[in-house]
């Protein structure tokens, strides 16, 4: 029941807020924030009630919906889902605070953010494809409007590109699943993830249709790859992220981009093990490209938001590298499965930590943009550290966390991913190593160009972080340190789920 409440609470709150009168803008905003805090509290309750001991689904709710088509209202979370729910619940209030001062119809903005949150929760808790897909799409629509209405000067094209790209992927995915449904024999027809995985595990899903299996696999892969994104399907992302308003960009990168990776782990991994295995090498190559090319491209950007957007692609590339590397059928040695577990744990850590870090980075870039009068070029600033030492210090922490500095949250995930990947897919991992260097290169370049050097006189009045802004980032900053020093907090939840996944692979 708690999952249902969690999922629909933002939706209901969003509808109610949208229905408020047009003169109730502030009230709507405050209510939305309160609702997101309630959702966060619920997520924390969920976390507290979660049993770390076993890796299966917990808090399961299963009701039939359209029994004739095998569509169920099936909710549940394992460690992975729980962490993603927690992350979403964390990011949404953070992003709301970042958009606190938005002027154009804040009520609508905040209710859309709540719809988005509901979509996220639904996606991360649904265990039936159709149910999952509904929420997957539900999250897309508010995101589109958030970009389209409140975005930057090129918002229309960015929003349309984002929408069409993602929609094309979704269509491919839906078609693939319907094909899968149609192709399986009536006895084993289902949309339920667990059932499909079990059938696949017994080898019964595509008994005779290898071509179809490949097509279905590629369709779903396309849908997920666009969302993550995987090079070469990533060109929508820099445009969308850089045109989106700050809070939306935080939502997009902090929580929505995780939906794709989550899909990889929840759908492709358990249901299509053989296809993953068969397509592993090209996928690994693409993952390596996703790590290196955007990192390098980020170095060539002049726009801070685009830089951070590219860095986001790069970081998600590590997740994909870990997933593809671990998709290697080995049942022989325990050491091997430990490497797989390392990679997958790393992927989950990276998802969570990137959510925190990237949204914090977008928050800071948004502050720069806001203070700089819509300027956000790399060369528009300089020496800001003199005027705003706290700003610089905190953004520096976020940058170093993004860079994977030990002691901050970025490190354990990347460490585990590379630990697994180096062993399971050495060549791809080695190819990806330069990505780490490029990341350092452009992140430090930001620090150098924006914060160091002489302070131009036009920025001499640059305000430091206000108390409210400090309080806004404080929880996230604290989490960066805590999760960097005690990753057991995350792996303790994620590891049982990973072991379960490995068992069924």
């Amino acid at each position: 029941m708690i999952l249902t409440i969690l999922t629909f609470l933002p939706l209901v709150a969003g509808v109610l807020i949208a229905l408020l009168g047009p003169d109730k803008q502030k009230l709507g905003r405050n209510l939305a924030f309160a609702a997101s805090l309630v959702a966060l509290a619920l997520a924390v309750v969920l976390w507290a009630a979660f049993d770390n001991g076993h890796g299966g689904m917990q808090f399961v709710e299963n009701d039939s919906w359209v029994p004739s088509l095998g569509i169920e209202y099936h909710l549940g979370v394992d460690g992975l889902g729980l962490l993603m729910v927690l992350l979403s619940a964390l990011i949404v209030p953070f992003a709301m605070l970042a958009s606190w001062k938005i002027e154009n119809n804040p009520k609508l903005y905040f209710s859309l953010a709540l719809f988005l949150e509901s979509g996220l929760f639904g996606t991360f808790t649904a265990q039936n494809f159709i149910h999952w897909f509904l929420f997957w799409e539900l999250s897309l629509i508010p995101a589109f409007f958030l970009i389209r209405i409140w975005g930057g000067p090129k918002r229309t094209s960015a929003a349309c590109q984002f929408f069409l790209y993602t929609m094309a992927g979704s269509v491919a995915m839906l078609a693939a699943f319907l094909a899968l449904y149609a192709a399986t024999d009536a006895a084993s027809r289902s949309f339920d993830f667990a059932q499909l995985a079990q059938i696949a595990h017994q080898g019964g899903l595509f008994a005779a249709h290898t071509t179809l299996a490949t097509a279905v696999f590629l369709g779903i892969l396309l849908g997920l790859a666009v969302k993550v994104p995987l090079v070469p399907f990533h060109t929508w992302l820099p445009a969308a992220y850089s045109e989106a308003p700050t809070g939306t960009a935080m939502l997009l990168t902090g929580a929505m981009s995780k939906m794709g990776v989550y899909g990889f782990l929840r759908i492709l991994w358990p249901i299509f093990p053989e296809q993953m295995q068969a397509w592993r090498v090209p996928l690994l190559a693409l993952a390596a490209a996703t790590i290196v090319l955007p990192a390098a491209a980020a170095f060539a950007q002049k726009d801070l938001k685009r830089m951070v957007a590219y860095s986001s692609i790069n970081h998600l590339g590590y997740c994909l590298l870990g997933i593809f590397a671990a998709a290697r059928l080995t049942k022989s040695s325990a050491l091997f499965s430990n490497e797989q577990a390392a990679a997958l744990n790393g992927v989950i850590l990276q998802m969570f930590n990137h959510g925190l870090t990237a949204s914090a980075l977008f928050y800071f870039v948004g502050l720069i943009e806001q203070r700089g009068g819509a300027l956000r070029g790399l060369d528009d600033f300089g020496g800001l550290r003199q005027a705003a030492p706290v700003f610089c210090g905190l953004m520096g922490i976020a940058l170093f966390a993004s860079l994977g500095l030990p002691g901050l949250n970025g490190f354990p995930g990347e460490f585990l991913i590379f630990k697994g990947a180096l062993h399971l897919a050495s060549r791809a991992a080695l190819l990806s190593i330069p990505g780490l260097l490029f990341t350092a290169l452009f992140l430090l370049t930001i620090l150098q160009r924006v914060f160091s050097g002489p302070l131009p006189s036009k920025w001499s009045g640059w305000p430091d972080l206000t108390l409210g802004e400090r309080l806004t980032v404080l929880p996230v900053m604290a989490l960066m340190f805590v999760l960097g020093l005690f990753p057991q907090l995350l792996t303790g939840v994620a590891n049982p789920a990973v072991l379960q996944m490995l068992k069924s692979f």
Partner: protein
Amino acid sequence: MESIIQYLWLIPTAPLLAAGAGALLPRRRRRLSAGLAIGAISISFLLSCAAFWATLHSGRATSNFRWFDFGTTSVQMGWVLDPLGAIMAVMVALVSLLIFIYSLGYMAKDENFTRFFCFLALFAAAMLGLVIANSLLLFFMCWELVGLASYLLIGFWFQKPSAAAAAKKAFIVTRIGDLGFLVGMLWLYAKAGTHLFYDHGQGCLEPAAAGGLVASTAIALLIFCGAVGKSGQIPLHVWLPDAMEGPTPVSALIHAATMVAAGVFLIARVYPLMTPGALQVVTWVGALTAVFAASIAVAQSDIKRILAYSTVSQLGYMMMGLGAGGVAVGMFHLTTHAFFKALLFLGAGSVIHGCHEEQDIRKMGGLRLRLPVTFATYAVGMMALSGVPLFFSGFWSKDAILDALHHWRGSQVPFYLGLLGAFLTAFYMTRQVCRVFLGKPMTVEAEHAHESPPVMTVPLLILAALAVMVGFFGTPAWPWFQAYLDGGSAGFDLSKLMNEHQLPVMLLSTALVAAGIVWSGWIYGRASARPAREADPLEVAQPALFACVQKKFYVDEFYDATVVRLTTAFARFCDWLDRVVLGGLVRAVCWLALALARLDRNVDKSVVNEGFDIGTEAVRGAGQWVSRLQNGQVQRYLRVIGLAFCGLLILLLWGCA
């Protein structure tokens, strides 16, 4: 022993807490921040001494813990207390303490004083953590954190673009090496199944090294990559001279005494992994670096840069010592070098401070009268570095290295390179001392230079004393240091000093050092009387060669032209790929869709619509005819319905009947 290992974690934690507190302090709480940092490092120093005392009596102790779980295993980390770590911890804590105190004076007027001590404490914490780490992973984490501290401190005067650039360069260049380290570490982890150095009293690295020669050599070399980056070995030495943009105490602490030596310490830590092949590489790299950097130092005019190249060169010696002679040889030079190089840097800082931030040695001169304490201590440092025999620590440690090289089976070339390096060292140090302290003041600033306050000179004196004394712990006659590291005991035996293996090498190096000092003194002792703008005597003699050396053999230019340009080009290419190729693809798809839509529209217009029109025209004709029945009178419809109903009823009844 057991008790001290329980509290070993306090050694890095105390400065870490000080750093954390310092970060939260407002800018005006200067004294509190400095007091916290110095107090914390004092605690660390005392604890290190206690730990050192404990190691004198017993061997090694470890304390391991679980960091986090994955799969069916977990990542282990831990602390280790053994002679290697203990000596290093004492050295680091002591030098840190002295430099912290020195900084009180040196940074007294800086507005970011508070932040400075915060960063220093952070550095000390990371460095001490690295020293006592019992896990390669923990080692790596601390390694990265000292890199961060180095970055922050090099860029401490961030208003200077050169400082910001140097900081970035330092971080990036060392990170190149670190990536190799990371790969090596992960490879080792996969192979050995653990990151620990010691577990249950056993070394964990030996079995891994025994596995396969090729693999373990590769792992060793990858880890050595990290050391190359951090210790400024060829080809990644370029960052270290630039790092002199940082405040001088930082240069002394991080870029002379401790952090750069961490690379050497790393090799010493993982020494069991070092296969003969790997050691050969280490030796050769060290040898090349030693001579290469020493020769560059000859032509520099910035007082700190000369010392920086000297540091690179001495690090090369340490590497040679590790490669040819083993842990003790390298570590001994590391320890002695830490003291005298810290001394030299602090002395240089005192000079710069006294000359109002002037760093060019050609604009100094005659300072021996104005800065007597600094001059005396600097001279001690110079002689220790140059390897003046018997009374200075540098002599003994360098001699041990040369001796080891002499007996090295690989090649004799490093030995000769080492000798050349020793000569060059003596040469450039003498040059420096002559230009700075001897002769007449060249500028007004030098004329009005003043001695530094006691808070700066007292650490100089202590370091000078140490620079002399430490050497006696590792003489061939009383190799206490070596024995301590190996866990044995050393007896005093003067005859070892005189045996036929050691004595010739000692004499040879002494001769070379003497030659260097004398020649240099002869050239620059005279030249120091001449005006500053005149060319260097060596430049007059060999203009082309001098220019080449002065420009550091154009390594930076070479990197700019190749690596940096390639990187930028690659970045541009990626950007182009995104914008033009992939973006174009998307646009092409878009155009295709639009074109299809146009085509479809035309087809609709001309074929479908026309056909429809014809069809509908026919239907309309029929409809018009039929529609006459429909006169819009609702009652008429109702009437029809009623009649139809009647008809239906009648029909039904008829049927029933």
